[in-house]
């Protein structure tokens, strides 16, 4: 199985605060990889390092078979991302936003492709509306369309269900599962919604205070027969590991 992300001994310090400490993990092709941790555990810092927004102090990141430091452009050509808040150009329409990010990804902004992405996230009817008129949930869905507009192999979603109503959350969950199952995409997703994560993630990592607590197949980690703890749900498992 092809390794899509290989992180080894990654560390990042902000002043005296150690945000990420000696973190290693692997994401395989086709995984929906859950990235879990309490607030401030280092999830967003790690995701920002994967997307080359911030530089690691120590450690290496291999993505899509290349070193991120030396092949950033090639890697980003095949990577789509939603990073925390779904901030887009509010004074432009949904269609214009997709056109811009399509061009930036090196893809010709073909109308059919753009409309298909908007339809995928349920925003086709609002294609011409300015983003400033959108609700938080609509912005979140548009941000996902932006992440998918260049048909990336690897999709990194940091809290993609923030601000969504229950129906919106269910739609995003279905979309993520479909991206992996039907389109062979690899998805790394961080979320606080453990019940959602339990339903869609195939593998996961839990980090605490910047360090890895556990990593593995979701089914195996939650299987009571393989664990010495009477685990019933991801939430119980997560809390047992992180609420010390």
């Amino acid at each position: 199985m092809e390794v899509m992300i290989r992180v080894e001994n990654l560390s990042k310090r902000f002043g005296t605060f150690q945000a990420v400490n000696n973190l290693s993990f692997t994401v395989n092709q086709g995984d929906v990889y859950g990235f879990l941790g309490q607030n401030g555990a280092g999830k967003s810092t790690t995701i920002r390092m994967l997307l080359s927004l911030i530089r690691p102090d120590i450690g290496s990141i291999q993505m899509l078979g290349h070193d991120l430091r030396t092949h950033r452009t090639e890697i980003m050509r095949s990577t789509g991302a939603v990073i925390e808040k779904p901030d887009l150009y509010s004074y432009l329409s949904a269609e214009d936003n997709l056109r811009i990010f399509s061009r930036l990804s090196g893809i010709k902004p073909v109308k059919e492709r753009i409309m298909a992405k908007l339809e995928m996230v349920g925003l086709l009817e609002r294609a011409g509306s300015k983003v400033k008129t959108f609700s938080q949930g609509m912005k979140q869905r548009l941000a996902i369309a932006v992440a998918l507009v260049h048909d990336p192999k690897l999709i990194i979603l940091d809290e993609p269900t923030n601000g969504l109503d229950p129906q919106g959350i269910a739609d995003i969950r279905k979309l993520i599962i479909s991206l992996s199952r039907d389109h062979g995409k690899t998805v790394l997703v961080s979320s606080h919604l453990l019940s959602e994560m339990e339903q869609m993630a195939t593998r996961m990592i839990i980090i605490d205070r910047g360090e890895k607590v556990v990593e593995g197949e979701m089914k195996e980690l939650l299987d009571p027969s393989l664990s010495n703890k009477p685990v019933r749900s991801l939430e119980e498992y997560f809390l047992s590991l992180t609420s010390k």
Partner: protein
Amino acid sequence: MIWELVRIELFKVFRKPRTFIAFVAITMIVALIQMGFYVDGESYIQFGMNALSENFDIQGKVLNGYLLAYIILQTLLVHVPLLIALVAGDMISGEANMGTLRLLVTKPVSRGQLVSAKFIASSVYTILLLIWMAIWALFVSMLVFGTDDMIIMKSEVVTQVLKQDVMWRYFAAFGFAALAMITVAALAFFLSIFAENSIGPIITCMSIIIVFTILNTLNLPLFNAVKPYLFTSHMLGWKGFFDVKVNANNEQIVGSVENLPAIMKSAGILVFHIVGFWIASIIVFRKKDIMS
């Protein structure tokens, strides 16, 4: 790829309402000055010409489009930096504030290309603003007030520029003014890399210009040493194109400029600042952690 990025940046710039504030402001200010001179211009000019009339026989139309364009340029170029900083100071900080900077940086373009495209876009905006200003200040003034020889009164000298010798000087002057304004844009742009909203870079840019301008006006040995290196000392170099050389008979040499080396030196110092701010912007942005 860089031109594609510049196109994207220009598309974004001209979709923002704040971009047009400068164009509207310039149109209004120029129209107000033109209206003022249309109503009271003759008496204003006559007042200034009184001293000259005692020694010279002045014929023709002193208040013409060329003179008015000079007056407008002199008045307006002091204030245009604010309008330039309004857009250039927002190029990076505005994206950080909106949260789109992090998305931009994850795209398959280098940070150097991204910064360069944004810088080129702010320079294009600056040039378009100067062209707009030229259309209103020069061409509309020519239409309304007509043309004739241009008489410029300075503190110690009076310069007369022949009618047929004026137009190219304006093209050169506007070109130089564009260079001066791009220097302001480059400074505001550089400052915008450090901020997460555009207010900081705009105010800091204007503060630097004000402080440097004050240093220029103070005739103190301490400041005199640094004055030649301050870009603000060279921003009014465009006026040099209206100083005409004279021959031994004290006759004007058409097509000449009295001190071209000084203008070229000023232009060189401005270009040095532009390139310096541009390179510094690339270096800083490439190393910057995007936390917004």
